[in-house]
């Protein structure tokens, strides 16, 4: 029996199969796609202005220039002409773009100086310029001001090594809108664009899988089950 097995394994047909098999393999290697195609979807583009470095917003300089109508004007160009005798708490007829949402601080003249509109008023008397806004904010936001002075709050850009270049410590109003100081929610930029394993991360429904090459078979499965459900309805 053993001898007949051996002679069978030496049968000429088997040898041809091996050779032809190798040739088929060779042709597959040669004619097939040489590089692996990674089936990733297009990443949503991130525009350059979405990742601009520097200050979050443009703060008023000292002296402040305000755009009224069509061109920039100094505050006192209008406010210096006459003394405003109208009550402080009223519907504004100018500066209507300003929405005041600053907690219990709801009066213009809590911060703006009544006499000189190009200055900010301090509670204990005296005024500071708009570039010294931190001194004004510090009167209510003491702990934050302390953190800002120590560098744990706020943003310092430019050079960390002041021997090599200038460090710019941004002031309050370069991040916060003084009239509405809390940070507003913003849309996040796109997340990681990687292969995603499993479904546990998905709290936005099954469709999140369409970005996942490893889960594509599930899409077919969903399509089949959807069509099956539709068929069942009829």
């Amino acid at each position, binding site marked *: 029996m053993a001898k007949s097995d051996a002679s069978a394994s030496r049968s000429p047909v088997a*040898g*041809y199969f*091996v*050779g*032809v*098999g*190798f*040739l088929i*393999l*060779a042709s*597959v*290697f*040669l004619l097939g796609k*040489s*590089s692996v195609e*990674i089936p*990733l979807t*297009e*990443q949503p583009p*991130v525009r350059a202005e*979405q*990742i601009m*470095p*520097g200050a*979050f917003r443009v703060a008023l300089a000292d002296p402040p220039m305000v755009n009224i109508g069509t061109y920039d004007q100094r505050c006192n160009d209008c406010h210096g002409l006459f003394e405003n005798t109208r009550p402080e708490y009223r519907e504004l007829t100018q500066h209507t773009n300003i929405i005041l949402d600053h907690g219990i601080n709801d009066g213009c003249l809590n911060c703006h100086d009544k006499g000189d509109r190009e200055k900010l008023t301090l509670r204990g008397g005296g005024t500071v310029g708009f570039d010294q806004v931190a001194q004004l904010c510090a009167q209510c936001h003491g*702990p934050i001001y302390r*953190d800002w002075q*120590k*560098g*744990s*709050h*706020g*943003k*310092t*850009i*430019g*050079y*960390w*090594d002041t021997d*090599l*270049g200038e460090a710019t410590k*941004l002031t309050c109003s370069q*991040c916060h809108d003084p009239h509405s100081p809390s*940070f507003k*929610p*913003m*849309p*996040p*930029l*796109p*997340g*990681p*664009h*990687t292969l*995603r394993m499993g479904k546990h*991360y*998905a*709290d*936005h429904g099954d469709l*999140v899988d369409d970005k996942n090459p490893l889960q594509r078979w599930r899409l077919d499965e969903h399509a089949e089950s959807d069509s099956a459900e539709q068929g069942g309805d009829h």
Partner: protein
Amino acid sequence: MQLPIMTNTTNEDGCPTRQYASRPGMTRRSFLRRGTAATGAVAAIAASLSPLRELADTDEFTVANFIQKHYKEMDGQDMAKALERISAQVEKRYDIRPNIRDIKPMDGVEFVYALNLTRCIGCRKCVHACVAENNQSRSPEIQYIRVLEMPRGTNDIEQGNHHYQRATVPSEDHYYMPIQCHQCASPPCVKVCPVEATWQEPDGITVIDYDWCIGCRYCEAACPYWARRFNFSKPSIPNDKINPNMSYLSNRPRSKGVMEKCTFCLHRTREGKMPACLEVCPTGARKFGNILDPDSDVRKILESKRVFVLKQDLGTLPRFFYYFDERDPINEKVPTGTPSGGDA
């Protein structure tokens, strides 16, 4: 059936064959059979090596690259040659002449990063500023910074989700924890590298010699902070997106099959500038500086804030610190209730 030692016989087709006991089976038929198999095998081997032809199409594999020394063994002349080769490569591939140099660490400087978790809103601007600064591959996109969306009330990072997609951030019942390379003082990734392609520099930055890396990904497995990235395919960067300000150890273009990681933007920070992720952060949650300088922001933060590091028990001694403010204005708005996943 027993055959004599040497005999003339006929096979089953009636063809006369001569069979030798010493070389059994060497008939015309068996010769063709073996010949076919051998030819096929050679062809298959040649074909299976055919992907190597692709190497010739790219400019990634050159003799100069192959015989280049390890970064630490290169002298000034070797480095000048290597930089010239890389410049020419970048110019050929991206049509832009880079300003590439080898920037050495500064004396008396140890970099430390601090991140204020109270302020981070999870907008991912840092992620993409980093991609733009460091010439990461755009397709597939490689991101060094991973922003975890964490349920409030826990610091178990296993509960974090970095794939969050929301109309707006922050979500009221989450906080956000960006993770990037922690530049550990005792880096596990360096210990496992079999070829010493990655090491820690005197200023605390762990770097990779991309020309020395063999792509075994041991370091990726060893890193407890998921900070290392692998180029599974050839990085693709549009020509107009290339940042020409490059250094040998940080953001020069990588090739397929090598690891890469955050280097605290050493081409910026070793010249005194802030890293790109800090510059773009809209809330100022990111703080960077020299911990050896008593007047630096990070030194004051480490002295005055309650900072913590991630996975402290691993003994990796990260140079990346997280802290919370004493008052949390965002959290104060949230009504008290189940911290996470209570009835979700």
